[in-house]
């Protein structure tokens, strides 16, 4: 950190001073400039010819992400003394920023080779991924509802384009249209919710909202606030893909180019959840009596429903889509658990989830061919035996998603369970365990097919594989998934510190609708 201090970074930020905004927004600034650089370099390379971009573009993109991560470390240990800044300067933001950057880096890494095969190797793809990442950082790091909205849009608009990036593929375009329509629809709800909260409380600043609700003074606009919270919840529910707001998810995930699916199910979800935590678990914490029961049901229905539907899926990509919905349910449990443990569990789980999901999509990419997605279960038959490394890596990711010991997923779930029991949500903990049991079936089925059924034909898997960089990334993800189990104490402590730094500690959330004493 002395590096940034030497550059003149102040120890304490006062956002009333303009220059301090530079430090507060350093990662975002670096990322924006980098994204523009990627666009410009691509144009300079290509001129006015229509040809695939050079292989140096993804490398440059990864370099930009690395530079952003470095800039993000400048936020370590920074304190913010002002209360009305639109951007939060806390450990929570630093942590989640890393999660988005990891998601984006994995997305770029596994897209190498894939884009060429589908004939969509264009520099815009990489620039759009960077801009979407910028949106995530703004959304997850905002301390003002309007900033959250802008971040949401900066994130969503590039994603709409990315989903439909393969213009020649009707499925991609169709998925893009569906995602766009439902995404814009949900943004409308979210925005209307902001307007009503603004009307009720008189500000969109989250700190101010939290303080106003915390003092318990009667602001006289109870119903307006309720309606605002409900609409905000709907909007965020769409973005995190919680049942019953999940209809777009399987289609958009299925139709989108697979690296984009990976980004949507990791980075986008993480950003939406970070905003969810900031808005609900922090700003609306003292109105918990109103929203906790609703979110309780949302979490329960999401966990149970998504896992049950995932059982019926014949496509691995769609199965992973439903699995990501189910994981939204688990994350909601962490959010509901409240307290520092709940938020730390959330952070730990979102990190583990990002790595393992992106890795799993990397294997899906490895199994695809020119113009062929190869995502049905039968396409995976025999993969584990013909390609032991791919099979082993996929097994590890799937077991981690299922929450099996020796993987990060197990520790993450244990963390959430612990937070849930401590936070008085023992019933949700039980539902989570039962839902995980159901999830064993469909994760296991893929492993069964990979190892215990013969391939469709001789040499069916001959072309399966990834280019070196992508292989390295997937292998790294694999190592991280296992290492996070054995050395989980390190990210855990980091998550705890980050959760502690959320600028306001909420009061314990109210009890769940049914009596929270199944056990005690």
């Amino acid at each position, binding site marked *: 950190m002395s590096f940034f201090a030497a550059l003149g970074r102040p120890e304490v930020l006062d956002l009333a001073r303009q220059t301090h905004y530079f430090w507060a927004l350093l990662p975002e600034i670096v990322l924006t400039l980098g994204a523009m650089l990627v666009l410009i370099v691509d144009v300079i390379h290509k001129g006015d010819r229509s040809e695939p971009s050079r292989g140096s573009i993804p490398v440059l993109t990864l370099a930009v992400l690395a530079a952003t991560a470095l800039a993000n470390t400048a936020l370590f240990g920074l304190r913010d003394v002002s209360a009305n800044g639109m951007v939060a300067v806390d450990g929570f933001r630093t942590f989640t920023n890393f999660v988005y950057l990891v998601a984006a880096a994995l997305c770029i890494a596994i897209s190498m080779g894939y884009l060429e095969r589908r004939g969509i190797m264009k520099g815009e793809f990489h620039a759009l991924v960077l801009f979407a990442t910028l949106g995530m950082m703004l959304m997850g790091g905002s301390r003002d509802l309007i900033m959250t909205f802008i971040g949401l849009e900066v994130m969503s608009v590039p994603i709409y384009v990315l989903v439909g990036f393969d213009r020649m593929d009707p499925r991609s375009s169709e998925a893009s249209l569906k995602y766009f329509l439902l995404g814009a629809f949900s943004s409308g709800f979210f925005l209307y919710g902001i307007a009503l909260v603004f009307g009720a409380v008189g500000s969109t600043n989250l700190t101010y909202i939290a303080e106003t609700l915390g003092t318990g003074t009667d602001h006289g606009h109870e119903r307006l606030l309720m309606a605002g919270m409900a609409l905000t919840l709907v909007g965020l529910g769409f973005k995190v893909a919680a049942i019953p707001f999940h209809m777009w998810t399987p289609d958009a995930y299925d139709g989108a180019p697979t690296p984009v699916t990976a980004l949507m199910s990791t980075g986008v979800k993480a950003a939406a959840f970070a905003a969810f935590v900031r808005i609900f678990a922090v700003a609306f914490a003292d109105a918990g009596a109103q929203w906790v029961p609703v979110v309780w049901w949302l979490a329960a229905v999401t966990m149970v429903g998504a896992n049950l539907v995932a059982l019926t899926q014949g496509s691995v990509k769609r199965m992973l889509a439903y699995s990501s919905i189910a994981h939204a349910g688990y994350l909601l449990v962490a959010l509901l658990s409240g307290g520092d443990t709940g938020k730390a569990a959330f952070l730990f789980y979102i990190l583990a989830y990002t790595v393992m999901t992106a890795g799993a999509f990397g294997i899906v990419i490895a199994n695809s061919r020119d113009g062929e997605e190869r995502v049905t279960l039968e396409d995976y038959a025999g993969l584990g035996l013909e390609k032991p490394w791919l099979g082993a890596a996929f097994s590890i990711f799937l077991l981690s998603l299922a929450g099996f010991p020796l993987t990060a997923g197990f520790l993450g779930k244990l963390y959430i369970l612990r937070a849930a029991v401590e936070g008085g949500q023992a019933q949700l903990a039980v539902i989570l*365990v039962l839902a995980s049991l159901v999830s064993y079936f469909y994760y296991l089925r893929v492993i069964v097919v990979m190892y215990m059924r013969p391939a469709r034909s001789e040499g069916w898997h001959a072309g399966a594989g990834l280019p070196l960089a992508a292989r390295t990334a997937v292998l790294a993800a694999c190592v991280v998934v296992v290492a996070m189990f054995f050395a989980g104490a390190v990210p855990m402590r980091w998550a705890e510190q980050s959760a502690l730094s959320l600028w306001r500690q909420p009061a314990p959330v109210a009890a769940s609708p049914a009596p929270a004493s199944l*056990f005690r």
Partner: protein
Amino acid sequence: MDFLKHLYEGPGILTFLIAFPLLGALAAWLVGDRSARATALVVGIVELLVSVPLFFTFDPTGTCPQSVIGRQNEGLPFAFSQLTVPFQNCTDAPWFADWGIHFRIGLDGISLFMVLLTTLLLPLMVLGSWTYIRDRQRTFYAMLLALTAGVVGVFVALDMFVFYVFWELVLIPMYFLIGVWGGKERVYAAVKFFLYTAAGSLLMLVAILYVYFRVHSVTGMSSFSYFDFMNPLAAFSAREEALLFLAFALAFAVKVPIFPFHTWLPHAHVQAPTAGSVILAGVLLKMGTYGFIRFAVPFFPDAAHAPGAVKWAMVLGVIGIIYAAMVAAVQPNAKKLVAYTSVAHLGFVILGIFAYNLIGLQGALMVMIGHGLSTPMLFFLLGMLYERRHSYEIEDFGGLAASIPVFATMLVFAAMASIGLPGTSGFVSEFLVLLGTFKTHPYVALLASTGVIFAAYYMLPMVQKVAFNALRSPANRDIPDLDRRELAILLPLVVLILWIGIYPKPFLDRMEPAALRLLATQSTRLAPPMQPMGDVAAAAPNP
């Protein structure tokens, strides 16, 4: 010699026994198909040689200092609150220290024999798979070695988190062993095995977490330590304790398997390759009964000693013995028959455990050992037969005593050991169980003793049809007798079966203190009505 003794009193040996097969698994995978089996054999033999001195240096009183394991038990009213805990070779390395998760392992008179059984079977299984497994050898041996590591871990874990991790770790390699190298219906068998066991263990996980949080909320300390889980301050209500016991018991009952939960076992056994059946019958089933002895009963003595629980356990145990014997008697498939005998034998173990006296418990442990020798021997023999004739159907054979006399002799011996003929391990152990059960539940003992007769009823006809009768089929005439490798597998088992059958004292001596202590723990926790919570909390030192 001093050096050796010093080594075997130190903490590293158990960690070595877990880590070495894991490294061996990696090595077997890396060296490739051609030399994987040789690598696995070397690893297995080294593992066995390293583990054997544990038997001779074993000190039943235990050598682990209090400070190593179970941090804060001073002043608590039960038998573990001595200056040393009755375990040896303890390791206690912080893992997730904030949560109270440590890598705690240790050995006592109960786990000692389970560990030795595992390490004994490992090289034998490698030899048994020598020619049986032809495809994907490196993965097979890697799985086998990883499985062994997991099993050893289960038997020495003294931290509930570590225990759970090893418990689940065992599942995956076993699942692959059945599913990839098994028979025709292997996928069905593998998935059934996995889901049954996983469902049971998730329930156990919930119960573990519940106890963890309760101990945390009562004493303020976060610990997954085995000893802290027996903290009497936790003071569960009767209903809580019953539910928790049930959650643990279900996980273990599926694994044992106790009567209504046994349906995965015949499939798994019949479909698994020989080595899979051997380790399944030899040690994996014992993980369930070990769980009862080590965890379920000591953690929740009130629930476990409740008349209802004991009654159910006894009834299910007896049903298991008699029902399994009945079903075994009509099996046309020899491997399935042997699989059902496992259910019957494990029924005896359940009786012995729930008799709650020293003889019963020792008997249960002896059945676990004896069954871990005789049933693997039967599976090895059937595997050898399968390699020659590619069949497990009893009616395909007949008159093998004429064509392959050595094999037939071995088969007769193994069958006798399984039935429990005097002079074999089976007799001593089942006799002890019946004696122990008779003290508390005479009628149950009477019923169960018919099981011994039943064992003869299903085992002898099988032996007769396979080894004797007329040598009708020409295919049975020109098959080679056992070779040296196969004898090398069987002879150690023969020797051990006879040793235990004739002179079981060294075994009983080593397990007696541990068994007594477990019983004492339960009775001290059972007997006095709990003091009011506040008093105990005040009396207990709170560091």
